[in-house]
Structure formats: structure tokens, C-alpha cells
């Protein structure tokens, strides 16, 4: 946009953004570019929270938020745009309230939906820059493909445990996400933050970096992180940058943008499915009928403290891993390990939070001599049970 077409700042905005205006490299023109600019945040959770707050505070004129979820207590360890006062409310509504408190002039547009193949192009087309702060692979690939097709820069950020990654994927000027990671991992090798954990401050670090890149892209300041991946290690507190390359055979961006077809990315489990499964409804029916089922909760003690299915035997997956290892490789007798508490003569319903860890435990138990037909995985785990009973 030509300088003469940029919106003027009001006296209030001149005061508010004074610390930007005194930066010689930033100045009035770049602040006006922020006011004229728009950013779409896909995800208003761990990464989206700091990004939304900093972009609103910095003076970005229009910010869109895409998130279908409501605020839950487990979010508050890291999702700082929300609070106890907004528990149960839409995340977009909760974040918008905080953003307007920081900057009453910001225009916040709420999209309380999942980003899908059907709506992605229409939603993303309305913004200058996209910030990917989602929590799952299918949406990340969808955001990438839609941005490549529309020629939008995609400020990527990912977190897990203590690790973070940041890049700017702009297929017109460098590699896209698929150039670096052509396909998602199989589901058993792709734990989410609920399964693998995340240090609460980690998305704060990475989200703030994403906000920095979005501000640079809108204002034309500095060198964007295109063609480079920033890798953050929270344990040794190191930042490393690696050079990326645009893949000549990239399934997304090696052809013409207009030829890119959005497709749903499905997560596939490459490990063989062992044992059976049942839904939360089916479990309730069998419990109501008084069937002698053993419930086995393989989550970790902090998760047990947040609630469990009454009567469940609590044996964490690491404990079971260790016991199976001892039986299979160290000649230990099953009765001498924690496996002794798991009967072999009746059905055992194994559950974790979402059904992934329990599926792995069933494979281990079968390897340790349990009959697969006696082992049942609770579909979608404790989350499904809670969803059914609330």
C-alpha cells in the first residue's frame, strides 16, 4: 500500500505506540502499516494467546481468530489470553476481550469453527498474514496448502514438551511446510501436548517469536525467517537456526499455486491394531450390567489426580513398560512385576487420556503373553468418558 493511502494515527494512538515511534528503524510509517494490516491466527490456545495479545498491543488493525473450542481449566497453565473468569466461554470471545482491553481500537473477527477444506480459502483470503498456532497436523497441512495457493505468508510455530520450532513459510519466496516435512508422522509417533506434556512457558516463547515475524512481515521491517527454521531447546536454553531448501518435488508448492488442491490430511496409525475396542457408551452399558471388567488406567499420577473412572486400577504406562521389559528381556516372572495386578482370565478395558498410550500398552501386554481378545481399548480414552458423563 502506498504511504499516502495508509491510515493516519489518532492522537491516542500516537501516545499508545510512542515506544515504537521513537525506534528509528520503525517509526510512523511502519506503525501505520500495522494499522492497515490484518493477521489471521489459526488457534487461540497456547501459541495463539501470546500472539493475539502482542499483535493487538502492537497496533495491528484487524485480527481474525479461528478456534472452535471453549476455555477449560487445563488450558490455563499456558493459554494466557484466557482466565478463570472466562472458563466455559468460546476461546475467541475470551481472547477478544483481553485484546480489546489492551487496545480498544483493534478489530477482532471471531471464527468459532474448525478450519476445514471447505472454509479455509474463504477465511484465509481475507487476511494479509497467517499465524499457524494450531495443535494438530491435519490443520497445519491445510493452513500450509491454503496459504501456498493464496500466496499468503504462513508464520509457523510448533511446541511439544520443551522443544519449539518457528519458521515463515512463504511458497512464493521459499520453502513451504511440506518441503520440510512432506507428511505427518503416524499417529503413534505423534503425541500431542495432552499426551506428551508441554512446559507452560514454552508457547509463550514461541508465540512471541511468531508475533515478531508477523509484525516484521506487515511493517516490512528486518529479514523474515523465510528459508530458515529456528529451533528452540528449553532444556539447555539454546536457539539454533537451520537453512531449509525448497523441495523440487514438493507435493504442495512445486507446481503453479492455482493448481494446488486442498485435501484433508488423515492421521494414520502404522502400528498394527491389537485387541478390541469399545466406546464410552458401551463401557457404561457393560458396567451397568455388572460385568466383571477390570478397568486399567495407564495415565500418569498427575492425570489421575484430575479424575479417573471409579474402581480403575492405576498403573502408569512407564510402569507397565518397565514390567514388560523385565518379563520379556530379563527373565522376570510376571507375578513378580506390576503385571501381577492385571488378571488374564477376564476382560480388561485399558484407557489413557485419548486412546493412544492405551493402544500401545495393549500391544505390550499381548507381547507379554496376554490374550488379545481379553484386552479392549477405550475409544478416545478418558476424554470420551468425561464427555459422556458431563
Amino acid at each position, binding site marked *: 500500500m502506498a504511504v499516502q493511502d495508509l491510515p493516519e494515527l489518532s492522537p491516542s494512538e500516537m501516545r499508545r505506540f510512542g515506544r515504537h515511534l521513537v525506534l528509528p528503524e520503525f517509526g510512523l510509517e511502519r506503525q501505520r502499516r500495522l494499522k492497515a494490516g490484518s493477521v489471521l491466527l489459526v*488457534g487461540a*490456545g*497456547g*501459541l*495463539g494467546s501470546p500472539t493475539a495479545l502482542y499483535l493487538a498491543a502492537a497496533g495491528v488493525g484487524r485480527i481474525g481468530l479461528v478456534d472452535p473450542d471453549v476455555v477449560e481449566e487445563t488450558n490455563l497453565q499456558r493459554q494466557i489470553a484466557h482466565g478463570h473468569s472466562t472458563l466455559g466461554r468460546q476461546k475467541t470471545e475470551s481472547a477478544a476481550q483481553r485484546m480489546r482491553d489492551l487496545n480498544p481500537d483493534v478489530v477482532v473477527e471471531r471464527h468459532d469453527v474448525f478450519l476445514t477444506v471447505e472454509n479455509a480459502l474463504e477465511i484465509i483470503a481475507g487476511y494479509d498474514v497467517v499465524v*499457524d*498456532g*494450531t*495443535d*494438530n*497436523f491435519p490443520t*497445519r497441512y491445510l493452513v500450509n496448502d491454503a496459504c501456498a495457493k493464496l500466496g499468503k505468508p504462513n508464520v509457523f*510455530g*510448533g*511446541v*511439544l*514438551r*520443551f*522443544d519449539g*520450532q518457528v519458521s515463515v513459510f512463504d511458497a512464493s519466496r521459499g520453502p513451504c511446510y511440506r518441503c*520440510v*516435512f*512432506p*507428511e*505427518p*508422522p503416524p499417529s503413534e*509417533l*505423534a*503425541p*500431542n*501436548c495432552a499426551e*506428551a506434556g*508441554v512446559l507452560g512457558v514454552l*508457547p509463550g516463547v514461541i508465540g512471541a517469536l511468531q508475533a515478531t515475524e508477523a509484525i516484521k512481515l506487515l511493517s516490512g521491517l528486518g529479514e523474515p525467517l523465510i528459508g530458515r*527454521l529456528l*529451533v528452540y*531447546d528449553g*532444556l*539447555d536454553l539454546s536457539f*539454533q*537456526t*537451520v*537453512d*531449509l*531448501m525448497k*523441495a523440487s518435488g514438493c507435493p504442495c508448492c512445486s507446481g503453479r499455486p492455482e493448481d494446488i488442491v486442498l485435501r484433508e490430511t488423515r492421521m494414520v496409525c502404522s502400528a498394527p491394531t491389537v485387541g478390541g475396542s469399545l466406546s464410552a457408551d458401551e463401557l457404561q452399558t457393560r458396567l451397568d450390567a455388572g460385568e466383571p471388567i477390570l478397568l486399567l488406567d495407564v495415565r500418569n499420577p498427575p492425570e489421575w489426580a484430575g479424575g479417573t473412572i471409579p474402581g480403575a486400577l492405576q498403573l502408569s504406562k512407564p510402569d507397565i513398560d518397565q514390567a514388560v521389559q523385565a518379563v520379556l528381556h530379563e527373565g522376570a516372572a510376571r507375578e513378580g512385576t506390576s503385571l501381577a495386578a492385571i488378571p488374564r482370565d477376564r476382560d480388561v478395558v485399558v484407557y489413557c487420556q485419548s486412546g493412544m498410550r492405551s493402544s500401545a500398552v495393549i500391544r505390550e501386554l499381548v507381547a507379554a503373553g496376554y490374550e488379545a481378545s481379553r484386552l479392549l481399548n477405550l475409544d478416545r480414552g478418558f476424554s470420551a468418558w468425561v464427555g459422556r458423563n458431563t
Partner: protein
Amino acid sequence: MATVYLPSSLRRYVDQRSTIAVPGETVSAVLTNLAATAQGLHCHLFAADKLRSFVFVSKNGQDIRLLNGLETPVESGDQIRILSSIAGG
């Protein structure tokens, strides 16, 4: 010996160490030698002897595909970084 950097999700295979010195004259040899220390790690890195599509490897800060892929020569002191795609947000 190259120094291999592992993301925290893979450190359980190497006694929670963030770096490990591994012999090998190519990136392929270094990764194969590393994976020989733990079956789970091999499964994470390779499928049918090809690097899995969600695993990214750099040598001295460069995507190995910018060099010679898995056949990129490795000299003593080189830094090999393994990254896995992560989707948490």
C-alpha cells in the same frame, strides 16, 4: 566422531542426553550407528531404510538435502541435528 543433537522427545533412547558422539563417515552411517543403540529410535528415524518423511536432519546448520542427502560426508566435529515435526500449539 560427529556430535548428534536430539530433540527432547527422542532423548529417552539415549539416557536423556541432548547430544551424543557417534562415529560414521556419512550422515547415513552416523544415523544407522545411532539407531543401533535403540530399536525404538531406529523405528522413529527410518522406514525401509529411508529417512521418514517427518524427520529432518541438518549438518552444521544446513538441511542435508542441500548437501548430498544421507550420503553427505561427515567429518570429526561435525554437528548433526535431528528434528521431528511437532504439532503442539
